[in-house]
């Protein structure tokens, strides 16, 4: 502990040098944490777990929500298929069907059914009753609301649809955080697809093992119909439709590795310069009785502290950036919210400290390997 305090004094009292190194580390860790946030958000959106029991039924060969048109009356047939727990018809309207950073998605749903189908939706501002009572009312995901600066009572227009914000909702589902739920008949008319036509059905099955058989049964049921369907688990759909986006995000992994290498090199270089500038000082400490371990340990602590402080600034900076900027990647109407997460923040801090410690090992060895008499004469 006493050695750690001595290492801390060394950093604090060389303010400019420590500040510049810390800034470099924080820039690298900001980039690393940003990449990790994207990777993590993608993993959450695409990796199916045992708790995922939602299927999405689209029109076969659809490219975009706009090209998927299914009769609303399919609902009663789907609800009758064994294994189906609940189903809801949804009309989708999006401002941009390609890859975009600012996707606006309207989901038209039967207002009286939404809460029963999606009980995890929590109205954090405004009320659900306001939504039920206003035909142009919208329940806006809080991620979306933050991005657009919306509050209950506000009106906004997108995709030619004018709505009034009835409430702001929070949900564990990233998709819910990025959409505006509106009344189904309202959206059908406002988007001119006409009453009785929906984009998709979201179907909840009894348990995860039933996803595949129920999907097959639905598609089989409507195969000979005028509007054949294509049914897949929600996350599989995302993984399939957002391939380009996923490739792009996967590529950022290399940026993350680059950031890690940059931080490693920066800290190693900074600590090596510190050690070289302190050859005689190190020798004096050894003369006073400081062991090679103690000297090496102090160097490693300095590197670790540089990593920690740079990591705190960079990683927390990235966390705040994604929290307040509320970026949403979208493709074909599906959205991927780039949301900060505690595991990414904690792992980012751990990586920063580890990089600081690892980067200091060689300088620490250099500091302690030189013969004492030679260092005293340096």
């Amino acid at each position: 502990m006493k050695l750690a305090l001595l290492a801390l004094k060394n950093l604090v009292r060389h303010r400019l040098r420590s500040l510049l190194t810390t800034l470099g580390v924080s820039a690298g860790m900001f980039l690393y944490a940003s990449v990790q946030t994207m990777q993590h958000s993608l993993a959450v959106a695409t990796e199916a777990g045992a708790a995922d029991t939602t299927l999405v039924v689209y029109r076969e060969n659809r490219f975009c929500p706009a090209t998927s048109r299914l009769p609303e009356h399919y609902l009663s047939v789907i609800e009758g298929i064994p294994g189906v727990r609940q189903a809801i018809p949804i009309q989708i309207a999006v401002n941009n069907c390609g890859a975009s950073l600012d996707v606006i998605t309207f989901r038209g749903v039967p207002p009286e059914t939404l809460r029963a189908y999606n009980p995890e939706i929590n109205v954090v501002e405004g009320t659900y009753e306001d939504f039920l009572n206003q035909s142009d009312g919208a329940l806006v995901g809080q991620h979306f609301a933050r991005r657009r600066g919306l509050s209950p009572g506000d009106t906004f227009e997108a995709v030619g649809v004018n709505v009034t914000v009835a409430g702001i909702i929070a949900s564990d589902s990233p998709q819910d955080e990025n959409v505006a739920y509106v009344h189904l008949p309202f959206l059908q008319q406002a988007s001119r697809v006409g009453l009785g036509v929906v984009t998709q059905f979201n179907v909840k099955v009894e348990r995860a093992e039933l996803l595949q058989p129920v999907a097959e049964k639905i598609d089989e049921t409507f195969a000979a119909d005028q509007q054949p369907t294509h049914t897949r688990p929600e996350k599989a759909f995302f993984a399939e439709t957002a391939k380009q986006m996923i490739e792009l995000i996967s590529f950022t992994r290399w940026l993350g590795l680059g950031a890690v290498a940059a931080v490693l090199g920066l800290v190693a270089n900074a600590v090596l310069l510190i050690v070289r500038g302190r050859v005689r000082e190190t020798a004096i400490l050894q003369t006073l009785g400081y062991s090679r371990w103690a000297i090496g340990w102090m160097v490693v602590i300095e590197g670790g502290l540089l990593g920690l402080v740079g990591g705190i600034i960079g990683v927390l900076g990235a966390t705040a950036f994604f929290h307040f900027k509320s970026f949403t990647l979208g493709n074909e109407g599906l959205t991927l919210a780039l949301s900060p997460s505690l595991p990414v923040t904690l792992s980012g801090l751990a990586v920063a400290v580890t990089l600081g410690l690892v980067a200091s090992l060689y300088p620490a060895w250099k500091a302690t390997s030189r013969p004492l008499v030679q260092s005293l004469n340096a």
Partner: protein
Amino acid sequence: MTPFISIQSVTKIFQKGQSLIKPLEDLSLDVPQGEFLSLMGPSGSGKTTLLNLIAGIDRPNSGKIIIDKREVSGLSRAELTRWRARHVGYIFQLYHLVPILSAYENVELPLLLGKLGKAERQERILAALDLVGLADRADHRPAELSGGQEQRVAIARAIVHDPGLLVADEPTGDLDRESADGILKLLGSLADDHGKTIVMVTHDPRAAAAAHRSLHLEKGRFVESPTGHSVSASPSR
């Protein structure tokens, strides 16, 4: 009486490129406890090498060095480091204080290796600074002190952990006459009043005269001093 420092037939050899250099050859010396000994000699005579061997910074190639009844020439590097931390105070010509630390923090450095609590460390540091007359400069950094004051802080650092042996390499070499006299007086009092055994390397005959005994080294051996100082490797007291 057993000498505090006993150097027996010590030889030190360095390799420089292809050639071997012998700064010390078959050298013997006894120093009783509480003696203030000065070592003089021209550059390259081996006096700093001898000082480093006595301080446990370096090890001889042959011969024995016994200090306070312990043979230090046989200790490993790690053991020597631990031994130095407890038994040796080193005073450098250029003071070598850590520039970013205050006088107080510099003096504290040897104590950070021990198990003393903060209060006890504080007591010892202030006592050491008081002894060298710099209690009122505890918060000053080296850059805010004069050369003489820096050397006093270095002496406080050398004595704060109460070592029996002080080694000083040209402690007055970078000081004006007045400051140098003050430092020599302080070293004399540490030997006389506090029983420290002091070995000092110096080029300055006036500094050497302040010691109890002065030895002259040339080519790794004790020789007759050109100024007629003692050449005996055994104490006269």
